[in-house]
């Protein structure tokens, strides 16, 4: 029976918290709901849809979104936890060790050959580091609310602080779950010898595993019977009508010495700061007509190209003006463009837009003659108007590149075709130089 004290405290809570949502805030949240509704109604079955949504949920810095999503996958893989049954002292000891750990390192192997994986490091209270095999590294200090994303192939970085860091902070919650493994597993798989160690396997029950990762079939944790440390985890995923997909958690190290320089947020010497290209440029165009989630990069050899470019610094919103300037210049020179306009976006300190022209075209300052050699590229053409979700499109595109075993090896390019006045004719090719992953 509720007593007076309960009513009193409940009333106080209610009075203190019952406030109306301001109209401006409600508008923004309703916009989020509308986006969410669209995604729900277009939802497709895929074992990676959670990852894809993570990649495209917020049009933030695209590469950072990709790396952050990889972190989510890492953590989600580890979060598929049982809540039941048969006690096992060996498993319980391993789980207890994880729960009480102050530092943790492991590798997620998505593909053995070519190797595609992520090395993850965590140190209490809030230091995290991801090192992706495709050349992206994320270092985060959640105690200070800062993080840095390093793109080693292009020697660029994105430094974030405050609100944007909270995107990665989501991983804290997942990590908290990893660090709160249940004390018992349901099924003992048996023993096997590996690397001079006697390992005991524990299968975690499907009933709870499938809730966070649709299609998950098995989550098998192998524990070293001698040390009672978690050795590795084998994960199998299969959706209806699709082949089994396997991924592994390897090299689990609990409470080991972690080099604190791994979490250093200072940009390495020679790295330049970047921001997301394209987002501002396309901000005022209508909503997308092609689902960003469906993008699949094609790997091909690009044709060599020569072009007249306007070298630019500052906001990408200047792109239309830059193209207009190049177009006017070419008219005065009597040069006909050999193809549609394009932009190359290395950073806001160094980018350019222009038109392909025949080789040998004379160019006067401030314009530049650029020669782009034939190279291996990833490419996809988005038909129709581009829409506002530039980050989401690039994230899906880069994810598709990585899934095919390639790494970005150059600045992003966008090639725009069609008539500005006719939506049906518009298309944008996303293109980026790539290299085969080792």
């Amino acid at each position: 029976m509720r007593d007076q004290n309960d009513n009193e405290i409940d009333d106080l809570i209610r009075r203190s918290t019952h406030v109306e949502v301001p109209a401006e805030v409600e508008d923004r949240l309703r916009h989020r709901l509308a986006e969410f509704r669209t995604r729900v109604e277009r939802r497709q079955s895929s074992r990676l849809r959670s990852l894809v949504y993570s990649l495209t949920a917020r049009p933030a810095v695209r590469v950072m979104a990709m790396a952050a999503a990889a972190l989510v996958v890492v953590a989600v893989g580890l979060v598929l936890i049982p809540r039941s049954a048969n006690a096992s002292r060996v498993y319980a000891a391993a789980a207890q060790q994880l729960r009480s750990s102050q530092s943790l390192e492991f590798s997620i192997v998505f593909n053995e050959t070519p190797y595609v994986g992520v090395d993850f490091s965590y140190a209490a209270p809030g230091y995290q580091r991801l090192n992706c095999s495709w050349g992206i590294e994320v270092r985060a200090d959640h105690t200070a609310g800062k993080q840095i994303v390093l793109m080693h192939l292009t020697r660029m970085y994105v430094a974030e602080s405050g609100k944007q860091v909270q995107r990665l902070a989501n991983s804290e919650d997942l990590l908290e779950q990893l660090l709160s493994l249940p004390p018992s597993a349901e099924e003992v798989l048996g023993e096997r010898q590996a690397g001079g160690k006697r390992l005991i396997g524990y299968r975690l029950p499907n009933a709870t595993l499938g809730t966070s990762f649709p299609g998950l079939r098995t989550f098998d944790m192998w524990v070293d019977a001698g040390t009672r440390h978690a050795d590795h985890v084998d994960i199998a995923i299969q959706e209806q009508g699709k082949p089994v997909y396997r991924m592994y958690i390897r090299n689990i190290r609990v409470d080991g010495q972690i080099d604190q320089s791994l979490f250093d947020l200072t940009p390495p010497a020679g790295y330049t700061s970047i921001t997301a290209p394209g987002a501002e440029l396309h901000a005022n165009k209508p909503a997308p007509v092609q689902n960003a989630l469906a993008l699949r990069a094609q790997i091909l050899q690009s044709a060599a190209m020569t072009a007249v470019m306007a070298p630019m610094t500052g906001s990408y919103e200047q792109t239309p003006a830059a193209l207009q300037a190049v177009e006017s210049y070419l008219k005065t020179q009597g040069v006909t463009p050999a193809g549609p306009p394009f932009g190359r976006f290395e950073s806001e300190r160094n980018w350019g837009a222009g038109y392909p022209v025949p080789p040998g075209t004379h160019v006067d300052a401030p314009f530049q003659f650029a020669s782009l050699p034939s190279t291996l590229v990833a490419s996809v053409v988005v038909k129709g108007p581009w829409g506002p979700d530039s980050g989401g499109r690039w994230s899906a595109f880069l994810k598709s590149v990585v899934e095919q075993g390639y790494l970005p090896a150059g600045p992003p390019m966008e090639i725009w075709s069609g008539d500005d006045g006719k939506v049906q004719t518009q298309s944008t090719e996303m293109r980026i130089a790539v290299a085969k992953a080792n």
Partner: protein
Amino acid sequence: MNDRHQQYERLIAPIESRMMRAVWRVIRDPNEVEDAFQDALLTVWKRWDRICKHPNPQALVLQICINSAHDALRRKLRQGRWLQAGAIPEDIPDSSPSVTQDISGAEQGALMLRAIGLLPKNQARAILMHAVEEVPYGDIASSMDCRESTVRKHVARARAKLRTILSHLIPAVHNKEESSHA
């Protein structure tokens, strides 16, 4: 009209306003509420199939919103970004009405949220669902995947802790009630 559309109409559309309110009541920061709400939607998306099969899907969705908002609240506290309220001592030295009656509604709200942020997760989420969203115990238990008695314990413990932390507020409320009755 496809299945997904019908599912959305059945599960989410009727509680859209409640979802927004649930997050706003805990966050109250226009800059942060959008991220917390988006996180909640992401979780709903990831668990969509489970939600569709859940015996009480709307309570589960509300629980997800509360969890996301509460996570954001805890992050805010951890990072020392609590702007509205001054430091609240663990032991309240002075609980006399003369001090507490001056507390404005806004300050009271900030103090309450901070106190809720200091509670253990399950207790905070249970009390938010029960006292703020007024969800029945049985539905909370269903959404938290535990027994109703467990929820009642969480709520009772949360009340006890809040009563201690906010002991300087409760007499003031009492006095206001008395004066209004008079």
